[in-house]
């Protein structure tokens, strides 16, 4: 029975193939088709051009400027702008403790900011996702509003809180905790408050969206099977949200490395960070290649540190899944 059916199917196929062949042989429009293929090529070329426009835009306005940066930092020119040769001499003035301290400062600032954002942001995302209940969307809405208002306004708003006669000092004075107003502005404290305030949503949003897709029954199952809080966190929650945590860390760590408005406005002139120095170099003094060399050097340091953070996360996920 089965063999018969099989045979009949192959028979049909053969028949249709034969039909096709006959079609091809007797097709008078075959020569016409050859003509239109040129139009087809043109059409596919046009399609390819349309498809590649985002990539071309990206290359012209993103990769070429970055290449120009690297090239400018490495090229030696005469006073009239003539190309002479490759050199590393623009980097020599940067190799002293002042500039290395500045890069080091920036690493410190962005690492501390990232850490604070993580330890506040992860529980926040968790509680909004699992304890929010009916208010979940409202809480998310409330989280997005400060995130999407003008960045300079945030700084401006914090002046009202941290000023000598601002809210915080008045509150502490009224409570009798201090006898005279404290100086909150122009300190590391105010810089960190502002950094955490601004970058917190960058950490919360990716973690929240991964937790939202996360099935809460998995947690219940874990508790039912006798795991305690720590084990559940370690074996269930962290492995499944690790990539979101990494995304959040990158989203906070990278921009805070180049941040210069917050330290400039909130930190006085005590601490210099990479962003401040770049903006001074490029917009203030006309030092040209040295400023660009500094930009390239600090970016290089950032990329190397990103590589190691990425490696660390690969190691972590391997370790966690290996244990499980």
């Amino acid at each position, binding site marked *: 029975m089965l063999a018969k059916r099989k045979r009949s199917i192959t028979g049909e196929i053969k028949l249709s193939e034969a039909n096709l062949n006959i079609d091809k042989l007797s097709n008078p429009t075959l020569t016409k088709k050859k003509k239109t293929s040129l139009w087809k090529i043109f059409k596919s070329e046009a399609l390819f051009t349309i498809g590649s426009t985002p990539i071309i835009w990206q290359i012209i306005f993103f990769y070429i400027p970055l290449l120009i940066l690297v090239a400018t930092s490495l090229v030696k020119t005469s006073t009239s702008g003539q190309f002479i040769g490759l050199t590393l001499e623009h980097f020599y003035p940067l190799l002293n403790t002042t500039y290395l301290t500045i890069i080091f400062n920036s690493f410190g600032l962005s690492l501390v900011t990232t850490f604070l954002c993580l330890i506040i942001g992860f529980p926040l995302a968790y509680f909004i996702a699992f*304890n929010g209940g009916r208010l979940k969307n409202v809480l998310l809405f409330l989280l997005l509003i400060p995130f999407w208002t003008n960045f*300079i306004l945030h700084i401006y708003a914090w002046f009202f809180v941290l000023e000598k006669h601002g809210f915080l000092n008045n509150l502490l004075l009224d409570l009798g905790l201090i006898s005279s107003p404290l100086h909150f502005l122009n300190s590391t404290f105010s810089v960190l408050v502002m950094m955490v305030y601004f970058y917190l949503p960058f950490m919360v949003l*990716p973690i929240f969206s991964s937790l939202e897709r996360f099935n809460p029954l998995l947690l219940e199952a874990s508790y039912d099977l006798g795991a305690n809080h720590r084990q559940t966190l370690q074996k269930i929650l962290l492995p499944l949200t690790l990539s979101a945590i990494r995304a959040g860390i990158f989203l906070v760590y990278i921009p805070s490395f180049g941040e210069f408005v917050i330290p400039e406005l909130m930190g006085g002139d005590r601490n210099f960070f990479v962003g401040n120095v770049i903006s001074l170099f490029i917009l203030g003094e006309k030092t040209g290649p040295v400023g660009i060399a500094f930009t390239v050097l600090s970016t290089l340091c950032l990329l190397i540190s990103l590589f190691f953070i990425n490696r660390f996360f690969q190691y972590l996920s391997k370790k966690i899944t290996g244990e499980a």
Partner: protein
Amino acid sequence: MLNAFKKLRPQLFPTLFLFLVFFFLYLPIIILLVFSFNTREFPAPWEGFSLKWYYELFHTPEIWVAFFNSCIVGIASTFICLTLAVFMIYFLASGGKIGKFIPIFYGNLIIPETVLAVGLLSYFSLMHIPLGLLTIIVAHTLVGLGFTIPILYIRYRELDPKIFEASQTLGASHKQTFTKISLPLMTPALIATGLVTFILSFDDFILAYFTSGSSLTLSLYLLSSIRYGISPIINALASILLIITCTLVFLFFSLKTKTRIL
């Protein structure tokens, strides 16, 4: 009583935590709003309600020039971003493959804006392109493309391929499949990413700071006015900007039921 407390206890810590964080997030904003209605300037305590600063805000033309500049830049960069994204969708809908090239857009997230701004500045000066609104628009399209293209690509790939197969089996051309199937299905995601692009552009400071030349956007105006000190006119402006943001976030949320981009 004690039982009720025990029942509440697991909910207590999260509630307290949420309350504290949102207090931290909203305290400055609320103070900002309150002082926009004060009759006197900031270091003086609360005196009385007035709309004086709002009146002065509407009679300060520089603010509105900067505001409209920001709008122009935001709309133009969003338009360019979305056009490029629609091109990509058209390419994908016609059977093109672009997956290999998507990682080149991740660069926009990995390179800090400060560095990109310096790069663009030296690029524009090398090409003798005068700095102005046009250069800010170009800079902002890059920020937009960095997440628009990857997100829309992922959204497109998540659509059921059977729909497109069905459309083509029923005899629709590539163009018809694109206009009748792909584009309508992608519209919510396009609008959502467009909204985010607009907001990022409108709020951006760093790129505008380097590539603006002599034209002012709202962020640049705000920075220069902060350097002069606190003025209640800015508070009034802040409350109006907050209303705009609320509307945009609300719009975003009503879209979010149909699409997920966060």
